[in-house]
């Protein structure tokens, strides 16, 4: 059975298809409007998914940390040894790493100086990655220093650095955490800051962000009450904040995409109105020879639907290509665009296109179907 004879079973589709074929340029331009709208919706939606995936991947390292410091209502300037012991008792499933911090100026033999923040920590390997080799599991006598500072002071592994009258040999280099040039880092054993009685921060490294959140809640209920904040417990709540920001971003982008689709459906409305006005006499003939109002209505609605489906399909294909390029650029993995999180925007885009077209076709269809045949025939 040929396509045409199959179409005869769906006269509205046959007629709509033939009508769209009559003025190909106009049909193409109307469909192009829809294509642009769909591409706008889809690629903006897919872009936010890509950004979101990339952001979570990058934040992943930090989100599993809980940071504890002295609260505003604490009587001690810092976290006490007893509090750390208590934390260790409560948090059995994660490492509790107390740290003391200070700032100092390092002086090199070549006379150069560098401001650094000093961290006294024993479990250095839990907090720092060395740029070469593993960090010492327990930092007892040596020191770690950030790359930039080492370079500035021309320090080599094994060279000595002095802090508070004690000499430490450099055991390794770390990437500075202060990316914007706030100075470098010096990491020494916690015994090096013995004259500070209390710990400045305690870092707890949990398995993942959710576990970190639960640990944070547990510590908060143990140490703090509504009025009395003994310890300031901060999980990387920023995960939620980042998520909120991304939600707003994707809403805004979808809004922009939505507006372009509204513009496209106004274009369809215009094209459908124009073509029904042009075909007024023809529609009058249809009505005169006994075609029912509902049948005329269906024919014109089908025309709008086909236009939307055509534009939606092309738009979805173009968007898929755009999405893969976006994912390649943002996350480095083009195939991730095929995942449901991002490819669902193709489905949405197509659905919106068809729905918008049917809506825009409704008025011209209704108008054409209800015109009196004598009036229409008179031209």
């Amino acid at each position, binding site marked *: 059975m040929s396509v045409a004879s199959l179409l005869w079973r769906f006269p509205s589709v046959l007629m709509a298809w033939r009508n769209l074929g009559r003025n190909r340029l106009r049909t193409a331009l109307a469909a192009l409007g829809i294509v642009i709208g769909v591409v706008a919706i889809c690629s903006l939606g897919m872009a936010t998914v890509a950004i979101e995936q990339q952001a979570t991947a990058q934040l992943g390292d930090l989100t599993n940390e809980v940071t504890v410091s002295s609260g505003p209502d604490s009587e001690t300037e810092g976290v006490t040894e007893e509090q750390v012991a208590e934390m260790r008792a409560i948090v059995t499933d994660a490492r509790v790493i107390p740290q003391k911090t200070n700032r100092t100026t390092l002086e090199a033999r070549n006379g150069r100086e560098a401001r650094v923040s000093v961290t006294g920590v024993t479990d250095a390997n839990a907090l720092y990655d060395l740029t070469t080799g593993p960090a010492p599991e327990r930092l007892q006598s040596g020191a770690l220093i950030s790359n930039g500072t080492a370079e500035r002071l021309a320090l080599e592994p094994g060279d000595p650095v002095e802090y508070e009258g004690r000499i430490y040999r450099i055991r390794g280099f770390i990437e500075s955490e202060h990316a914007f040039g706030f100075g470098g880092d010096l990491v020494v054993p916690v015994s090096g800051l013995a004259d500070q009685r209390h710990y400045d921060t305690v870092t707890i490294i949990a398995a993942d962000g959710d576990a970190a959140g639960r640990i944070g809640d547990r510590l908060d209920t143990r140490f703090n009450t509504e009025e009395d904040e003994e310890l300031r417990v901060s999980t990387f709540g920023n995960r939620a904040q980042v998520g909120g920001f991304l939600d707003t971003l994707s809403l805004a982008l979808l809004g922009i995409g939505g507006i372009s689709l509204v513009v496209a459906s106004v274009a369809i409305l215009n094209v459908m109105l124009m073509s029904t006005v042009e075909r007024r006499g023809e529609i009058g003939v249809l009505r005169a*020879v006994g075609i029912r109002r509902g049948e005329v209505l269906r024919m014109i609605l089908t025309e709008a639907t086909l236009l939307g489906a055509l534009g939606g399909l092309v738009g979805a294909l173009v968007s898929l290509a755009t999405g893969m390029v976006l994912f390649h650029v943002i996350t480095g993995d083009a195939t991730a665009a095929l995942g449901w999180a991002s490819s669902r925007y193709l489905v949405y885009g197509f659905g919106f296109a068809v729905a918008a077209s049917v809506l825009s076709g409704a008025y011209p269809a209704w108008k054409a179907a209800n015109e009196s045949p004598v009036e229409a025939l008179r031209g």
Partner: protein
Amino acid sequence: MSVVELRGVGKRYESGAETIDALKDVDFTADRGEMVTITGPSGSGKSTMLNLIGLLDEPTEGTVSLQGRNVTDFGEDERTEERRSALGFVFQDFHLLPMLTAVENVELPSMWDTSVDRHDRAVDLLRRVGLGDRLTHTPDELSGGQKQRVAIARSLINEPEVLLADEPTGNLDQDTGGTILDEITRLKAEEDLAVVAITHDEQLVEYADRVVRLVDGVTRT
């Protein structure tokens, strides 16, 4: 019983301050197997009368009957059903759909009727009007006379009782007009039709079984 009957029919157009009585107290009948021609000067109400018979328009006075049924008060949907089942139309300027082939144009009135397949009848009608070799041509590939023959085939696809034609030869030359009238006359007999045709043209009058003359909306026999 006449298949078409107008009794005391009037049609008044009111546009702003002006009222035009396009038809005044018209009585008219047409029977199956006869061709009635309506003539008269321009603006005398011929098309108005044909539109009333064809249930495209409603009279402001009087009654319209089809096959003995009073259809005066039919709503738009009922009139559509009547046109679909009992009436056929031929227009002066053919009114074929340009994106459909000849045979598709003929099938058009029954296209949405998926219960019946009129394809064979469409082909048969086109053969009978001499277009058996033009079935898949589109209107722009046909001459005026051929287009009008496609239109005549279209008007008969639903096996109507009444064929209504508003100046069917108006856009054709003398000879072509003659063949179209021959065609209509032959089909009138074959299909047992009541034909009501409007013309300015004396030529059509020769083919008529009866002539009704309209002057200023009033019939003169």
